[in-house]
């Protein structure tokens, strides 16, 4: 491949790629993102390839392995073009039937189509409620391109924004456009990207760096991962444009080692852009030079914090530094360094191509554009969701997410990752944007969204996240290291039923200090889970402390199981299933749980047939005395409560 030496060369290349593609030719696309990969998309791919060749269809049907589509709950996802027929949960065994119908117009494999609540099937991917209510401007191309093939990205207009800035716009104009678009950082802080770029551009020094923060580490979050895996060129194009605007000639992508597919797709993408002359010396013949180095992170959560990330790039242990002098002025090796998150960079080519006015027409007053959320937890449609800023939590969780599984009640949603806050049902109509979430005591963070149902104990949730953060604290500053340690100790004892009067207030007191004087954002935001759950679910804490009761029935030390002798039919199921042989009884004999032996694993509760419902889970009250061993079950003629 000869280097592209001008904008005209790029356009020629694009025309050449498109001329070889027939939009009417059937193409089987298969999601190969991490979610579908885990569900066996590799085997499905092999089945497709061998089935096509077995039927002599190799030249008549194209196959493309794409990036993540987002509907991970129902993978592996197959979409067949040009009709855009969408099959969900495709197994290798389904492939012969799928392939046999590709060339038969109008014939469908009905059992693999999406079915709505009324049982109606939906053929087009875009009509499925999960997708229909999204606006996928950043994430949408994932489903159309093979991330390992730069030509797929170019065919969709890729790198036209780069050509536009290099030949039609000066760096200042690019900067102004991004500022006017009011693009705010998608990594959590929400700081205006254009303002940050300007600071770095104006900072003294000849050598400046630009960085992609791909150290996404929140439990349950995978939007940056899917973007980098599925459409690496969109991130790179944004980065090169940013470098041009800032006057930087060297960039870094800090990506976690735990994202092997992202690392390999990114590395491949970099070699492709170098080969095409879109990276390196004299990009597209414009005279602008820019190189990118991939830095693989060793897996410390705190290295996602910008100053810690920069020390890690320097080769030192990733620990935050005081940032009273911003990293935009003094970052890597004390040189001006502009860092943005994966999703922020991926927005840049869109803003350049479609203009700041178009971008600001989407979203709310203070938060423009869209945001990708990873919707996980107790929700029917887990996956990646991209919506305009300002859409309500209700719309995301119910309209797109399909509500709570098994008819359970919604209890809370945690936004913003481990240091986000838990928002209760009363706030479910909250419009989701940077400012509204912060005001409600949570945050946008990088876009994690964990839905919790009625079976969730909020003190236990706070304990889990605080423990995660204490574990991930670098330990440099005292409030974060020792403050979080003490908060975990208190939360642990509350969940063990050993909480004391004054513990809630002590948690609040510690939270204030950790928030106010911790060195970096990890510590400063770490008390959010505790504070938000105290604010919205204080009664649950009080139940744990005062009545030694866990209302959700989660905290093992506070729950007990017993069998109601009036309901037990001696069916023997729980007796057989109990993993620790804590249940005694026999034919016609009432089953009894030995409280000493019981490990509270919940198995008996789950296996007791609902028509008997003899196993009782109780909390906060003493277990009734068991009937004498050998008591017989009450046999009534078909009469049982």
């Amino acid at each position, binding site marked *: 491949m000869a280097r592209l030496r001008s904008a005209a060369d790029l356009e020629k290349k694009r025309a050449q790629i498109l001329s070889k593609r027939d939009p009417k030719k059937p193409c089987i696309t298969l999601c190969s993102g991490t979610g579908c990969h885990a569900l066996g998309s590799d085997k499905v791919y092999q089945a497709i390839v061998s089935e096509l060749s077995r039927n002599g269809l190799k030249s008549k049907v194209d196959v493309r392995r794409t990036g993540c589509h987002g509907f991970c709950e129902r993978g592996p996802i197959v979409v067949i073009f040009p009709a855009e027929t969408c099959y969900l949960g495709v197994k290798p065994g389904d492939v012969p039937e799928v392939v046999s119908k590709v060339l038969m117009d109008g014939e469908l494999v009905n059992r693999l189509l999406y079915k709505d609540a009324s049982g109606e099937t939906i053929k087009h991917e875009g009509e499925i409620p999960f997708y229909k209510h999204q606006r996928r401007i950043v994430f949408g191309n994932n489903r159309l391109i093979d991330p390992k093939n730069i030509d797929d990205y170019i065919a969709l207009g890729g790198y036209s924004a780069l050509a536009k800035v290099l030949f039609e716009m000066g760096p200042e104009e690019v900067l102004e456009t991004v500022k006017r678009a009011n693009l705010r950082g998608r990594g959590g802080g929400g700081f205006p990207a254009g303002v940050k770029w300007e600071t770095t551009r104006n900072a003294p020094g000849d050598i400046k760096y630009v960085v992609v923060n791909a150290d996404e580490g929140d439990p349950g979050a995978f939007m940056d991962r899917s973007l980098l895996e599925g459409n690496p060129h969109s991130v790179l194009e944004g980065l090169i444009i940013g470098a041009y605007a800032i006057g930087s000639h060297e960039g870094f992508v800090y990506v976690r080692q735990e994202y092997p597919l992202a690392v390999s797709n990114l590395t491949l993408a970099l070699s492709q852009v170098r080969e095409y002359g879109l990276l390196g010396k004299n990009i597209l013949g414009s005279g602008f030079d820019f190189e990118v180095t991939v830095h693989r992170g060793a897996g410390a959560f705190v290295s996602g914090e910008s100053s810690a990330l920069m020390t890690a790039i320097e080769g030192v*242990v990733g620990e935050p530094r*005081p940032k*009273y002098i911003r990293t935009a002025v003094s970052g890597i090796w004390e040189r001006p360094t502009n860092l943005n998150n994966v999703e922020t960079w991926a927005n840049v080519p869109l803003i350049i191509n479609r203009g700041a006015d178009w971008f600001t027409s989407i979203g709310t007053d203070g938060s423009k554009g869209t945001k990708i959320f990873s919707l996980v937890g107790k929700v029917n449609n887990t996956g990646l969701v991209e919506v305009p800023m300002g859409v309500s939590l209700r719309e995301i969780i119910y309209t797109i997410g399909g509500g709570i599984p098994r008819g359970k009640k919604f209890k809370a949603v945690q936004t913003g990752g481990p240091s986000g806050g838990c928002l209760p049902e009363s706030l479910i109509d909250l419009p989701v944007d940077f400012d509204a979430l912060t005001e409600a005591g949570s945050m946008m963070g990088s876009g994690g969204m964990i839905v919790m149902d009625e079976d969730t104990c909020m003190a236990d949730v706070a304990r889990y996240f605080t423990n995660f953060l*204490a574990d991930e604290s*670098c330990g*440099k*500053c005292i409030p974060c290291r*020792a403050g979080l340690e003490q908060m975990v100790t208190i939360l642990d004892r509350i969940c063990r039923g050993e909480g004391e009067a004054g513990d809630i207030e002590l948690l609040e007191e*510690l939270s204030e200090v950790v928030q106010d004087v911790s*060195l970096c954002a990890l510590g400063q935001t770490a008390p959010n889970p505790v504070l938000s759950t105290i604010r919205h679910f204080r009664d649950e804490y009080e139940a744990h402390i005062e009545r030694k009761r866990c209302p959700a029935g989660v905290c093992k030390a506070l729950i007990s199981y017993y069998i109601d002798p009036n309901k037990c039919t001696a069916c023997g199921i729980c007796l057989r299933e109990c993993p620790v042989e804590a249940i005694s009884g026999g034919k016609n004999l009432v089953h009894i749980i030995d409280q000493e032996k019981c490990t509270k694993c919940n198995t008996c509760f789950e296996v007791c047939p609902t028509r008997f419902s003899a196993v009782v889970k109780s909390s906060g009250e003493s277990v009734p005395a068991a009937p004498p061993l050998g008591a017989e079950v009450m046999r009534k003629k078909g009469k049982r409560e």
Partner: protein
Amino acid sequence: MKKVRLNIDGKDVEAQEGMTLLEAARDAGIHIPTLCYHEKLAPYGACRFCTVEISKNAETRLVTSCVYNVEDGLVVKTDSPKVIKMRKMLLELMLASAPVLSELASQYGIERPRFKSEVTQCILCGLCVRYCAEVKGANAITFVGRGVNRRVAFIDEVVSTGVCMDCRECFGVCPTGKIPRETDGASFEGLTVQDVLARTL
């Protein structure tokens, strides 16, 4: 060098641009307590004990004075109720692992600490680590572990070269006295690799 005028605890202070609040206060004879600060070392900002309250444009916030640079017109309070409250809590947290600080703690009115932790008598201020690296260039001491498992340890390969024998300057910078106490205050001689590692502080 440009002069900067600010007010610390009601006193008008003139400082050089680029100075930290802590340096400006000390020059003016105003005491701000510190635990991880040393004038020969680059400011580190870890103990947060030098936290002060600043007001600028009707906005008040807490900053760390050892790393915050002086600004014109800044109003600084080094002992506002909020600052004292923070310091007390920090001290109480440190006291859990370093009871040796009880005298300092009682100066702040802490008599019965509410927290418990593993007693290490080390507050991880990093003075020994940084002094050894920045001043002596010996790099014989390091941090190991992360978060609550963070500890200070001697690097046996360095100690065994004998470099520590004539130095022992870390003894003097340790604010809790842990290093001189636990290294016998005497000799590094005869320590094996295992001995040194076992003496992880």
